[in-house]
């Protein structure tokens, strides 16, 4: 075999080897991916029996929206507890006989005509919650919001 022929033969062999190794690596990662996906599904299924997954929206008066999707909360938690969990305890309020009146979230305080109002998504519209946030128990898959406005708007 000539030197040039030798070179092509060697190159073909080396390329065959890299193909074998690349295919084996692809199979290895695919199997790991499939296995991880199965483990994730199992974990979520186990979590579903112990916790609820809810979505929480924070909307500021300038229109900025902050979504906390797939927030895991223990069954029986109130909107107040869930909001405190997602914001790291940055939901502040004053206690009255009818319940807690939220004055500040994430350091943004309601003032003038604008205050923090709580809403729930009924599947079509945002509905103002006419109950104190610590008395409103969240359900599986519920979408709720805090919106800083004058009370006449919805998120």
């Amino acid at each position, binding site marked *: *075999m000539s030197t040039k022929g030798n070179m092509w033969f060697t190159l073909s062999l080396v390329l065959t080897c890299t193909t074998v190794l690349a295919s084996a690596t692809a199979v*290895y990662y695919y199997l*790991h991916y499939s296995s991880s996906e199965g483990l994730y599904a199992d974990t979520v299924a186990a979590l579903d029996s112990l916790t609820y997954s809810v979505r929480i929206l924070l909307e500021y008066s300038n229109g900025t929206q902050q979504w906390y999707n797939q927030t895991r909360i223990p069954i029986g938690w109130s909107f107040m507890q869930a909001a405190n969990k997602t914001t790291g305890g940055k939901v502040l309020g004053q206690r009255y006989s009818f319940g807690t009146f939220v004055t500040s979230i994430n350091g943004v305080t309601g003032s003038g005509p604008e205050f923090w109002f709580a809403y729930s998504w009924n599947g079509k519209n945002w509905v103002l919650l006419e109950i104190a946030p610590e008395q409103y128990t969240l359900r599986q898959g519920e979408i709720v919001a805090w919106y800083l406005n004058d009370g006449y708007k919805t998120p």
Partner: protein
Amino acid sequence: MIPLSNVKLMDSIVFATGVVFGYVPGTLVAVLSWLIYGTLNPLGFSAPVLATVVLSEMVYSCGGHLMGKTSYGRRAGSSVDMNRSLVFGSAGLLCTLIYDLATNAVSGLLAYNSIWVGWATMNFPFPLGIIHESSNFLFFASVIPILLKVMAKAVPTSTYER
């Protein structure tokens, strides 16, 4: 090399024996090596697995025998060059692939009653097949030319070019 799973110098030795001395001596080295390694192995002993690996190890003596018939193998004592090393490395990787497919098919049949599961476990959960093939590529490319040079001194000049 027990701590390094699936990294074995034995395959290179069997292959080199096949190149220099032919299929039968290569196979004898394979069988004897596995009888020692497979029975005194700290990881345990299993007769069906031992039989499988002994038979599968013959892939290396067969590959070595065939390589001995090519210009790469006939120049058993020649100096080490990149082209030759790559051919040996590639031959090692392909022989290892056949070895791994055969042994994993049998262990899959024995453990799970399925060849496909055996092949799936070849690289999962640990990439043992990839480790075996890559390490043998490196061993064959680096160790075999040196082994052949040493072995060539032990055989008549008329059989192998020096």
